[in-house]
């Protein structure tokens, strides 16, 4: 597709998710972070504090936008009002790119505010392809979709998740926000090999990586974003970078949010992991 809107904001290196707890750190201290990711919906409000801090922080940091409510896989019609608001925010922020999740969030106009898994079927693929194209046409830019973690699988599934994801990326001509932790979480919950998943990802479509912590319950794993990144996920991350090369990477922390310095130290770990993976692959 043609990118009609200007994508002048260059994103590279290592970022963090912007959380309200750290507003003052970013405004006052301007710590070294290559870019920040904001949750779009947090700023789809009329005015006040959220937009004040967003504008202020945007002056010092490149930003990418990450949504949770697009419901690209939903069977209700696309929410045009939501898309218009999203576009307004895009105009304001001039983000490096815009992402949401490869999931559905509600049905019959009941929003469950959760990232619910798709059935991995041909019918889902056709439905998603059509909707991704509608959204990309409306926004005038390619979007990134993120693989979500899941706890159940559908009886109707016709293919593996990695086959489904890579097929969608090529049919819909969109990009991937590859969440390495989500791959790990789902691999444990469904008993598949996460390395096979990584191998199936089309390298040129992976534009961003998420790292996060999870909660291990033994026979299942929950994607909680309230812990540091675990060793198994670091290993999978190094493997991903060795295979597809360096991709802008960030750490997501949504609960039990520690002081910013702790996240900066964890981000330094990501830099080292990526550098060692690149060196190993060379």
């Amino acid at each position: 597709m043609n990118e009609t809107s200007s994508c002048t904001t260059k994103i590279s290196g290592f970022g963090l998710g912007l959380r309200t707890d750290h507003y003052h750190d970013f405004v006052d201290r301007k710590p070294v972070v290559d870019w920040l990711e904001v949750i779009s919906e947090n700023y789809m409000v009329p005015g006040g504090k959220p937009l004040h801090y967003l504008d202020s922080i945007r002056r010092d940091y490149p930003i990418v936008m990450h949504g949770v409510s697009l419901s690209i896989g939903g069977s209700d019609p696309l929410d045009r009002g939501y898309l218009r608001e999203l576009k307004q925010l895009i105009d304001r922020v001039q983000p490096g790119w815009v992402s949401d999740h490869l999931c559905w969030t509600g049905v019959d106009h009941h929003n469950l505010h959760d990232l619910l898994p798709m059935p991995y079927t041909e019918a889902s693929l056709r439905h998603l392809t059509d909707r991704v194209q509608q959204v990309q046409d409306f926004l005038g830019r390619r979007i990134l979709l993120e693989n979500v973690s899941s706890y159940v699988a559908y009886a109707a599934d016709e293919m593996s998740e990695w086959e489904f994801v890579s097929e969608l990326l090529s049919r819909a001509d969109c990009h991937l926000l590859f969440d390495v932790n989500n791959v790990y979480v789902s691999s444990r919950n469904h008993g598949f090999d996460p390395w096979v998943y990584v191998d199936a990802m089309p390298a040129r479509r992976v534009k961003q990586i998420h790292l996060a912590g999870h909660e291990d319950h033994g026979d299942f794993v929950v994607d909680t974003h309230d812990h540091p990144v675990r060793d198994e996920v670091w290993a999978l991350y190094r493997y991903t970078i060795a295979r597809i090369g360096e991709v802008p990477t960030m750490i997501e922390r949504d609960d039990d949010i520690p002081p910013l310095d702790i996240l900066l130290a964890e981000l330094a770990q990501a830099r080292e992991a990526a550098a060692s993976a690149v060196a190993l692959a060379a």
Partner: protein
Amino acid sequence: MMSVATASALAAGMTELQEQQRAFRLAVVADGAAAGLLAAGSSDPLRRLQIYRHAYRSRLTDALAANYPALARALGDEAFAALAAQYIDARPSRKPSIRWFGDGLDDYVGQHDVLSHPALRDLLRLEWAICCAFDAADAPVATRDELARLAPEAWPTLRLELHPSVCLLDLDWNVEPIWQALTRDAETGIEQALPEPVEHRHSLVVWREGLTPKWRSLEAAEAECLRALQRGETFEELCRSAARRINAERAPAFVVGWLQRWLADGLIARV
């Protein structure tokens, strides 16, 4: 153009997907059986559904508590969770953003006898107004100097406008001391005995000063005047209606006094 065959395949797939999503929704929000929906897989899918069920309720309960922190404190965890559970089932979220979850709570508690004390309804109305003032639209505020520069003949027909964050509430209970005590508790982490609610019909104005929501209780005459301004009445009309409540000669002085306060507080949008 899409071919007829492609379009009908898309429609058939869509119906199938819609049925799957409806069954999934019921399984999550109403503990539906979801027979045949989920793969048997390596573990018990019904146990796994619990993760979604739990996440659904806890996420919405947290969102409600974030919008009504004083109410949550006043009720305590257990009673607040019970109220949230009823509200979640009665008023499913229809907005894309979870930020608005709880926008119908005032209406809901008005229709169902679910609060242990009627003053709690006024408390939650105050909280929702604060919540809306927090991220209401930005607009420049009028200053005293700007108004002072107006020609005297412009005053009678002057129509002032309220800042978009301004919200006027009519309350039946004196909930302000209760809100203050609960908010102080949240800041200090020390729980203190709450003041006894006192029945007292009055008005209150909520607005945002800079980035911070504020509120102030109003006497009846000032509230009436602010409402008249909100309705778009001219300055002359404001004085006239104030004169019906207060001494006719002193009414303009009162209105000017209130206006000075409103300007200082940032209640009036730039003319």
